[in-house]
């Protein structure tokens, strides 16, 4: 008789033929183990209860409420009136709102591409050439703008980029260069806002990339060096594939943020000139809180949510071929 029988409540973990015979590993389960496991599970759920409560109350319920509201016509003041999918039909024919989605997508693409490439560039530079102190210094420096209030930064940048009285054009003037209509021409306003968003957000991407680059195995880098790979080849053939999961994460986060761009254009240009920097979220705000069409505004919000989900899904699909998991 094997020893198993002698041990009450014991379980054989590996049932292998005796002739191959490592002695069987036995996990001893003490009496009441199941009850303990259940208690631990309950405790675990209790621990995440608050987080779940927060997510439910502040994320899922508002989304559900918005979804419900999107089928109504509601001006806050009068009772809501059920209109079915009329708000969605209106969305499909609403030129200015569709244009704001187009603007959002264009600006989001520009922001994500710039943010990732600049973040990677800075991370590679800092990772390659600097001491631990230098790395910490740059990491802090590049991360600082992210800690500043977006509203305060936007107001400040508005003054800085003012066409007539701003410091930027003042210094351009000292160099004999003409003033640039940073925020007063449609293209200028879009570019300026993209640059400001990238400036403020690049620190986050940079920190992610620095950490990821530091975790690239040194032996792999040494091997590539021995094989004669130069810095660029090492970067694009070794480092970038190895940190591609981080790049994917950074891209997803950056894109989600960029698709919800609101503060900078609303504060600096109020969505102008004209509607040049009117993003989807500004459209949503104007429709709801200024034009008192909360049902339609909710429909815009739901469409934006679906769009972000779709784009994020596409990113993950693309990642199957482009992202390398070790």
């Amino acid at each position, binding site marked *: 008789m094997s020893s198993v029988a002698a041990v009450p409540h014991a379980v054989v973990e590996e049932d292998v033929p005796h002739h191959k015979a490592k002695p069987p590993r036995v996990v001893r389960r003490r009496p009441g183990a199941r009850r303990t496991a259940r208690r631990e599970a309950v405790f675990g759920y*209790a621990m995440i209860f*608050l987080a779940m409560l927060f997510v439910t109350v502040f994320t899922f319920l508002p989304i559900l409420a918005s979804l419900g509201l999107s089928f109504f016509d509601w001006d806050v*003041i009068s009772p809501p009136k059920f209109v079915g999918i009329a708000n969605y039909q209106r969305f499909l024919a609403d030129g200015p709102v569709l244009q704001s989605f187009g603007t959002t997508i264009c600006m989001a693409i520009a922001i994500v591409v710039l943010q990732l490439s600049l973040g990677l560039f800075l991370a590679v530079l800092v990772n390659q050439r600097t001491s631990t102190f230098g790395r910490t210094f740059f990491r802090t420096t590049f991360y600082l703008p992210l800690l500043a209030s977006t509203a305060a930064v936007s107001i400040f940048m508005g003054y800085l980029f003012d066409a*007539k*009285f701003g410091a930027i054009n003042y210094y351009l003037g000292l160099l004999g260069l003409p003033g640039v*209509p940073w925020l007063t021409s449609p293209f200028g306003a879009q570019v300026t806002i993209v640059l400001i968003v990238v400036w403020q957000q690049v620190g986050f991407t940079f920190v992610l990339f620095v950490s990821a680059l530091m975790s690239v195995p040194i032996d792999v880098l040494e091997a590539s060096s021995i094989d004669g790979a130069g810095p660029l080849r090492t970067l694009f053939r070794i480092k970038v594939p190895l940190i591609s999961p981080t790049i994917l994460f950074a891209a997803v986060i950056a894109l989600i943020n960029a698709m919800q761009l609101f503060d900078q254009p609303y504060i600096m240009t109020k969505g*102008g000139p*004209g509607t040049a920097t009117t993003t989807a979220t500004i459209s949503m705000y104007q429709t709801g809180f*200024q*034009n008192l069409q909360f049902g339609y505004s909710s429909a815009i919000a739901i469409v934006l949510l679906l769009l972000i989900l779709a784009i994020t899904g596409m990113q993950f699909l693309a990642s199957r071929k482009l992202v390398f998991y070790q």
Partner: protein
Amino acid sequence: MARDFGPVMDRRDLFRLGGVGLAGIALAGLTTGLAGCAPSGSGGSSTGTLTMLYFGDQKAATTLQTALQPKVKKIDKDLTLKVTAINGTDWNDFLAKVLTLIAAGQAPDMVSVATEGLQLMASKELIVPLDTYVTKDMASLKSSYFNDIHPALIEAMMYQGHLYNMPDSFNAGSMFYNTGILHKAGIAAPSASWTVDDFHTMAQGIKKVGGQTLPFDWVVRLWGSWTSFLYANGGNLLEEGKYSGGDWLWSKAYDAGNPLITGRQGGWKWGAPTANSAPSVEALQYVIDMQKTGLSPSPDVGGGGTLQGLFSSGRIGMTIGGGFWAGGLTNAGMKNGSFDVQAFPSWKGNKSLFGTGGYSIFKSSQKKDAAWEVIKMMIEPESFDIMFPGNVTTPGRKSLMTAERYKTTGPDHWSVFYDQLNGSVPISAPSYYNALATSLNQRTTQAVSSGSAKSALDAMQSDLEKAATGS
């Protein structure tokens, strides 16, 4: 029996208790935090507290509340006034936030309402007509209030023949100028009969001063924007008309034969959009051309804080302002005498614009009678400087428009504020004002950036036509 001295609590219990404790603390914090985030004092209460929404910061609201409390106690010793501040860049912003509070079921008993929000709130039946209250107290109000208030302000607060608001302040769009810059340019102060041509000549003269100084600046908004030129040019964004009715007021509140009540009716009725009319295109193109020729910078949207900073730091020669600029410029550091004001220059005519503000009672209020008593108290002459310390707006009462009031702040020609009300028209704020303001901002900046008024105003016409039909 010997007692085993082990740990009082094992690790698992400690975690469990810690988790429960943390959860409790977090829940308590969440509840307290959310309670703290909720606007205090709002909600039409049925207890002894009257709530009012105030356009400004909470510090000013608290000061106002403290100052008014003794007066409220005189009305009813069991009554308490709670003033809740709402910050905003302009009345448009204020209105949007008030509506958000209403959506959240936090409607107050009373609210400060300006022209911008009057028809919106009245048409949605958020505020109640004050006709019954006014009629009841007509005898005292006639002598103590109406005969001291310009009828233009009263008519601007009427809608479909009913009075919805008791105004106590206004701002007419006049032209402020920096006396130092005019002196430097060797230009005389404008006369009361000046025209847009005179204004243009002055602007060209100021341009010669050079440096960082520009002759003129303006803000993209409905009040006191390129719209001032539009009014002077004989136009408007919407067809001007008036609701019938109002005789119940005009025949009793003012002395018969008062020339100022001639033609007054039941409030302004804003008709079909005329945003791309010839006067409109000409007026907007005029200010765009000023920018093209270096006579003005690109305008800001909303508010007016940046403009005030530029004007007070001597970078702008002239701009459109109202009585609120007397206090605003003084607070920004300008000395009395360093700026002055003149009525807006005439163009095709001398029509100018104004906006007015006062107090309304919410339909949901449980204490409308008490609210009415408090409103009467707030529009008394001695309440004005409590409500608006330091000339931050223009008194609606003529008796308060005195040289003494402007002795320390200026401007010298303060009397133009009130005089300009004769023949002026309120800003065209229909029930769809918010949509109008959004379109005005977008299309004006579009016109400025493209350099052409016509196509932008065509688009604005289309926007307004859609907004007017509610689509």
